[in-house]
């Protein structure tokens, strides 16, 4: 690795273990003075873990971290901040109820005769923000300003406190194009002043617009560091998703497109700010795959279809009848089921038993006036524990005690119990071990052989290729390509994802 003097922060062979998993496996990262370094990787790649090891939120298990050539071991984010590493998160970590000036100077307000000198504090705050080309009323509360302004205030605070390294963790996720441009101008200004900037984002356009170098992580592994200018977009996507383009494609596909009738049809379906209007039709017994990088609108599509978000354009048709899917409840009544991406937050209810978790959706569908009797619940739970091979000693065990794969199967069981006709699976194989992985895939194939329609969102391209009869490719919150039949290859998916906004994706 380079050991030149202009290296400001270097992490070498960082290892971070969590119970049962290695989150970072000898990861290297180096940041030069005056560069913007993009840190990329899919969800679970280890980006945030690496950042947390650098800012002291986590203690690393192995490896060395050097700032200006000196070995450091930050205890917590405050310690890292005083050493010179400041962080700005997507969720602005400032206090909206305090004034802009108070946020900038919290804990170090200028005082006179023991009392805070508000006038002096406001003057200094104005002077500080003027460096960023910003002229706002600093005595107003922070939450009276837009998120973009709050981001700038957060950056100003972090730079003022730290001054060596600035870590931007998805700062642009909730900004519009103009605001992003303003933020970029500020970051370029900081770069010119010699700060090292670590930039995390899911928007590849922004990576190419702003960064000098790129480091890619995947599954806790260090994949590589490249100069942005000499790394074609296609190669970057390959690095992130981890597919050698030379890979032999599996021709075997469980299901060829069914020529049967379209059962679910969505026309011009979309919601401003979430996903651009798209058309989607799903036949009986068909598996439609959705591919795209994180943040490309995959989960947004699923949430829109399931009524979690209300569409603001387009129509939905089920079996030839126009329906309104304004709530998950309405969607469930039309035979929809949805296994969300983050099962810990949105799926399982950890303290309830496996039996109760499985019975939940069926009970909700029946309505609380007609409770499932305990014996019905037991029969239901036992049937699915057996059918899906959920490994547990007892159906009454709290579901949080099961392994990830078994939790995933229990959620699947919950929806299968409602006998859905259209099941949406968001990352069904994330975070589960290889054995359970194969079982879930087998299950998907079985379900669709039984005539169920499935929509599967996954980052595992090979997996999608293996069971999908059609694949939709998403990029920047837009459906950009649809692959069918022989065109379904990981290479075509990668090409479609990597195609830049201007050129049309080719099949």
């Amino acid at each position, binding site marked *: 690795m380079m050991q030149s003097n202009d290296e400001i922060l270097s992490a070498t062979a960082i290892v971070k273990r969590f119970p049962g998993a290695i989150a970072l496996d000898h990861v290297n990262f180096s940041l030069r003075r005056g560069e913007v370094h993009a840190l990329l990787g899919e969800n679970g790649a280890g980006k945030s873990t690496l950042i947390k090891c650098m800012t002291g939120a986590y203690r690393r298990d192995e490896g060395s971290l050097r700032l200006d050539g000196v070995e450091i071991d930050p205890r917590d984010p405050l310690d890292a901040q005083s050493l010179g590493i400041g962080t700005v998160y997507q969720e602005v970590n400032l206090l909206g109820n305090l004034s802009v000036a*108070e946020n900038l100077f*919290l804990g170090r307000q200028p005082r006179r005769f023991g009392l805070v000198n508000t006038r002096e504090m406001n003057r200094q705050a104005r002077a500080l923000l003027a460096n960023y080309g910003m002229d706002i009323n600093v005595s*107003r509360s922070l939450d009276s300003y*837009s998120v973009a302004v709050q981001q700038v205030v957060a950056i100003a605070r972090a730079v003022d406190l730290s001054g060596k390294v600035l870590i931007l963790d998805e700062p642009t996720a909730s900004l519009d194009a103009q605001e992003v441009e303003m933020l970029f101008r500020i970051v370029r200004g900081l770069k010119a002043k010699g700060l090292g900037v670590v930039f995390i984002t899911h928007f590849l356009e922004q990576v190419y617009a702003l960064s000098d170098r790129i480091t890619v992580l995947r599954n806790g592994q260090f994949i590589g560091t490249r100069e942005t200018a000499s790394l074609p977009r296609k190669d970057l996507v390959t690095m992130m998703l981890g597919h050698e383009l030379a890979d032999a494609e599996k021709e075997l596909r469980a299901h060829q497109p069914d020529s049967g009738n379209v059962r679910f049809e969505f026309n011009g379906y979309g919601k401003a700010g979430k996903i651009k209007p798209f058309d989607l039709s799903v036949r009986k017994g068909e598996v439609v795959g959705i591919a795209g990088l994180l943040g490309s609108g995959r989960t947004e599509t699923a949430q829109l279809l399931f009524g979690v978000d209300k569409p603001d354009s387009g129509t939905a048709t089920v079996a030839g009848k126009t329906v309104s899917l304004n709530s998950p409840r309405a969607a469930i009544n039309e035979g929809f089921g949805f296994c969300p991406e983050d099962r810990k937050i949105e799926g399982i209810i950890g303290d309830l038993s496996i039996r109760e978790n499985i019975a939940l959706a069926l009970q909700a569908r029946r309505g609380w006036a007609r409770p499932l009797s305990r014996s019905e619940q037991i029969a239901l739970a036992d049937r699915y524990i057996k059918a899906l091979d959920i490994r547990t000693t007892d159906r009454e065990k709290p579901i949080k005690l099961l392994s990830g794969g078994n939790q995933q199967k229990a959620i699947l069981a919950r929806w299968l119990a409602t006998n859905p006709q259209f099941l949406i699976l968001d990352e069904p194989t994330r975070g589960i071990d290889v054995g359970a992985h194969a079982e879930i895939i087998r299950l998907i194939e079985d379900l669709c052989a039984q005539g169920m329609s499935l929509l599967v969102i996954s980052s595992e391209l090979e997996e999608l290729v293996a069971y999908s009869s059609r694949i939709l490719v998403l990029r920047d919150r837009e459906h950009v390509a649809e692959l069918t039949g022989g065109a379904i290859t990981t290479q075509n998916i990668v090409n479609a994802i990597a195609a830049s906004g201007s050129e049309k994706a080719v099949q």
Partner: protein
Amino acid sequence: MNQKYLPLIATILIFIVSYAMCALQYPNMLSTRVIGNLLTDNAFLGIAAVGMTFVILSGGIDLSIGSVIAFTGIFLAVMLETTSIHPLLAFVLALLITTAFGAIMGAIIHYLEMPAFIVTLAGMFLARGMAFVLSIDSIPVRHEFYGTLKSFYYKLPGGGRITLIGGLMLLVFAVGIIIAQRTRFGTNVYALGGGPQTAALMGVPVARTTILIYALSGFLAGLSGIVYSLYTSAGYSLATVGVELDAIAAVVIGGTLLTGGAGFVGGTLIGVLIQGLIQTYITFDGSLSSWWTKILIGALLFAFILMQKGILFVSRRGRSYA
């Protein structure tokens, strides 16, 4: 205009309008006597409400203050009856006990990560119980020093008096406003109310601030107990039941957000005065049941909670872009 002043302005307007309406009906309400009594009669509530304002601004609650006031009253009465110590020394002792009591509750809330509601509820029972242990009877205070203290007052034109305790309340409010607005501790209190995790990430000493807040509330409850003892010249274990709720009402009517992070100590003074005004009006009327105070306070509280929701809603939608 700065939106954070809206609830405060609304409170002040309500106070002025209702005072004007009362004065139209009973012109005597404008006399300095009524104003002086308004301050004297509500002095103990006002002092306790200043402490409550800090607690609520930080996102907490202190249910113990009514019991602490009663405890202080009975403690003073028993001390002055059974020992020969000077009342001033007894005051100092009482303040030390109540401040430590508050500090311990703050420490439990922070270090054991317990909800303030539960911890101070326990504190409420504990302080009330301790008061009963000291005495179950109402004990009069006959010390001549009490008479001396009561003889201090500032005579207003028109016959009204700013008594020592009324003046003390105004002083406590003045100091409270300075602490809240012009010290780092004050900003830290607002920061805690804005979000304890974020505040900790930004370097606010959360433990110290939390303990100080409840210690301050305990200190002011003790001071309020001393004032109540001077006001009634007696100590009684069953006194000031529910005063913590009156204090919470005064804070919320004064424009402080019950969820913390926004509001003003000065608003609480107006909240206390509004409650006193309703009470005074009922006294003037003579035919109304004094429970009408509670009904009107209930209605006012509800109106304020609705208003706060409304302001929150409007400010979320109307963010200015710079």
